[in-house]
């Protein structure tokens, strides 16, 4: 086996040093009944060429662009990934290091993570961000659990029905069995935003938190200021969830509009679609809540010569110290994905990220215009959207299927989660879609 160096001579010499005669002697203390049944019914190993051929054959059974042009978003977005991102995360010094427990020989990971925390906190308009969570959905669930710690007496949490359906399901799974916190939905209005009157009615007694999308699952930009005015008056925490982090390059930061915790999905920052993972959970909050925060944190400090350096810090919140009283059970997170995002954001930079986000907004408006003019589509919700929008068109499901046959993934049918939106598709357009691609989308959806 090419990954394992031991020769027969090595094995014999090492067994001799241990004082054993055979490899079986090494495991003789494991009960024989267990050893007898341990045979692996797995074919023998393969060389690199055979492994490559088999996996290339599997990969070829999946259809991606240009064979299938993707306009699906709904929590995972096609974006361009600059070459430098992959070049950096392929560096074995980053990719094959462990969590930086020995800071003196992990300054690379630590400084990059500190930079990540800074960039995400700045994007969110909040003071602190952690080193990452698994994805946007689990970051949302962890935000709800954090709200429960901050408001232990509140019995409910209000979750917008316009949050990604899968995120709502994950929150439900995390809360199940914990006791003391029921999740209650807040409906959306005809404009696609949280129904403010319905929200107001549910704010007494005060819930632990109100959780809203920004933009929400329909790509719609909530009126955060109006929502924050109500949560502040009720004395409850406001949690924003951003499934498409690219939006934060353009939108007013949630922290500046009243969010106490801002979470999101950072996949758009240099991380491939990869059939749903690994992605990048973003988590930011106010400084005064930091000790209730889940996840790892990197802090700046100095070494014995007074030189600047970085360490994992505030670990007394975490499972390896606090065990059953930890703020979360998270240990391994998504560090290399956080590095990819840091490289991506550094490349885009102060002006580039804004322009890129703006390009997304314009592309989506151009796509909407084409769908209206050529496919007879109508916008479902009237409120402003970012790079994703819901359109209604007669026989949407049939047209979606036909577009698929024509090599276009024409968004995502919304009826699978919202029966009232059976004739609606959720379509996203980003900087990767050329004008020709968008023409192909519109033509594929023509009745």
């Amino acid at each position: 086996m090419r990954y394992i160096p031991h020769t027969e001579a090595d094995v014999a010499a090492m067994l001799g040093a241990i004082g054993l005669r055979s490899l079986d002697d090494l495991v003789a203390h494991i009960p024989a009944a267990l050893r007898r049944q341990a045979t692996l019914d797995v074919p023998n190993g393969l060389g690199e060429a055979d492994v490559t051929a088999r996996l290339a054959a599997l990969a070829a059974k999946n259809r991606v662009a240009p064979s299938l042009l993707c306009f699906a978003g709904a929590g995972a977005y096609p974006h361009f990934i600059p070459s430098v991102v992959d070049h950096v995360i392929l560096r074995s010094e980053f990719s094959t290091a462990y969590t930086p427990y020995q800071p003196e020989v992990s300054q690379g990971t630590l400084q990059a993570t500190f930079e990540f925390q800074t960039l995400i906190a700045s994007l969110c308009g909040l003071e602190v961000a952690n080193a990452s969570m698994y994805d946007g959905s689990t970051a949302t669930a962890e935000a709800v659990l954090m709200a429960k710690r901050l408001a232990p007496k509140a019995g409910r949490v209000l979750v917008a029905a316009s949050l990604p359906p899968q995120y709502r399901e994950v929150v439900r799974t995390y809360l199940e069995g914990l006791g003391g916190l029921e999740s209650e939905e807040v409906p959306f209005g005809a404009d696609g935003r949280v129904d403010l009157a319905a929200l107001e009615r549910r704010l007494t007694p005060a819930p632990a938190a109100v959780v809203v999308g920004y933009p929400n699952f329909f790509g719609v930009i909530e009126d955060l200021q109006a929502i924050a005015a109500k949560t502040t008056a009720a004395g409850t925490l406001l949690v924003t969830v951003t499934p498409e982090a690219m939006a934060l390059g353009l939108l007013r930061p949630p922290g500046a509009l009243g969010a106490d915790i801002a979470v999101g999905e950072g996949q758009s920052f240099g991380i491939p679609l990869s059939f749903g993972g690994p992605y990048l959970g973003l988590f930011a909050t106010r400084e005064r809540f930091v000790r209730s925060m889940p996840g790892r944190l990197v802090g700046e400090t100095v070494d014995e010569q007074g030189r600047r350096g970085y360490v994992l810090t505030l670990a007394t919140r975490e499972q390896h110290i606090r065990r059953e009283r930890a703020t979360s059970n998270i240990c391994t997170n998504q560090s290399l994905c956080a590095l990819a995002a840091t490289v991506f954001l550094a490349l885009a930079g102060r002006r580039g990220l804004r322009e890129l986000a703006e390009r997304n907004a314009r592309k989506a408006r151009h796509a909407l215009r084409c769908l209206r003019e050529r496919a007879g589509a109508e916008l479902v919700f009237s409120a402003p959207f970012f790079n994703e929008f819901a359109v209604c068109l007669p026989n949407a499901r049939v047209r979606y299927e036909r577009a698929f046959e024509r090599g276009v993934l024409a968004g995502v049918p919304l009826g699978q989660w919202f029966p009232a939106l059976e004739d609606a598709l959720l379509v996203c357009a980003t900087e990767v879609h050329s004008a020709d691609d968008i023409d192909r989308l519109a033509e594929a959806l023509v009745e």
Partner: protein
Amino acid sequence: MSGADESRGLSLDELPLFERGSGGRRGYTLPLLAERERDAESLPAELCRDDLDDFPELSEMEVLRHFLRLSQWNFSAATNFYPLGSCTMKYNPVLNEKIARLSGFAELHPLTPTPAAQGALELMARLEALLAEVSGMDAVSLQPAAGAHGELAGMKMIRAHHVSRGSPRRKVLIPQSAHGTNPASSALCGYGVVPVASNDEGMIDPAAVAPLVDAETAAIMVTNPNTLGLFEKDIVRIAGAVHEKGGLVYFDGANMNALLGVAKPGHMGADVLQFNLHKTFSTPHGGGGPGAGPVAVKRVLADYLPVPRVVRGDAGYHLSDDFPKSIGRIRAFFGNFGMLVRAYAYMISLGGDGMRWATQMAILNANYVRKRLEGVLELAYDGPCLHECVFSDSKLEPLGIETLDLAKRLLDYGFYAPTIYFPLIVSGAIMIEPTESETRETLDEFIAAVEAIVGEAREHPERVKSAPHRTRVSRLDEVRAARQPKLRWRKASIE
């Protein structure tokens, strides 16, 4: 921090991103726009932010150089022996990086209709079958994103099982030697934790477990081999005692690298276990993730597995949510798919024969280190180990040095430190896991370094106590980091 400095040549200083660059520089060029889309509007100004405070302005090469220099400050499994116990820092084949980047995997949207995602679903089904086979379990879900996430899914399933029989029960038994994630995951499922003491052989004593088990015991969480690297020889009896009272057995699979082809958890009484694909199955650790933590169950828990599940029907594979007893969804989409691709490539590269060989060589390497070091350091518990060995600090103390000092001095010799001060039941624990990837020559060098450091401690203890000396930074002030948290860069932090 500016100005010429001739001392920076070997370990180049690298300022934070935010202290570099110049207004107007950029490292990204947008794609071209066609004439017909130029007039499309952006968002109304009142919805837009003023600025991206603190964001850098850098050219592409500045960004590249910044991160390449940072990379050079890391030890990694590819560049250094990384004997970090409990973390299985084996070789991460570079082939698997290439495979995960094939466009058919990397560019596949998770909501692609299943007829266009058959390769991905087939890979998942095949990986599930392989994991079930090596563990002796009946069904697998690939959804959990990491080991602790797998524990959470597993404990939720145990809870759902008990609820279906009338009561969730109240407590979970956890050995004192367990990973911290075990009690944290139990607490997240609403359970109280009952610690189980280890006996003087470092094992769980069935006689100590039996009196703790009653009708309120939901489960026991066991790690086998345990965190001392020792096989729990009474595992079958312990599982039997818990099963007898209607409780279930959660098997922490973090140490599966000791078991492939040697013994299967499914035969030891495990009802559910998580795999850490980033340990046993060689997906890179990434400096702290992404990992993947699939869960495997026996039939008794199969109905409770998270949704969606991969199902094979007449028209090929599809994903189904139609499992009414499921604990539900534990994350968006279907797991850390890119890591699943790497783990599958690893498993078919090794095959059944290679996996067993890997386990045998991992055990051989650990026992070789144990035997060669047992005269230098004090073994926490005598007897053969499996994939890792644990020493205490009792021979270091008289020399006036601590476990931490040994760990830091090893960095000067070019070795990452073992896991230290864990498990908690060993004074000043030093936990060494060499893995099967390392040559005998590397182990000999490591052993020689430990011997040299112990020698130094006799002659020049200060040299050891003030280590490391050859790293980019010396010991860092962790107390200051925690007392005056500085968790992001700020303009004021320029010195």
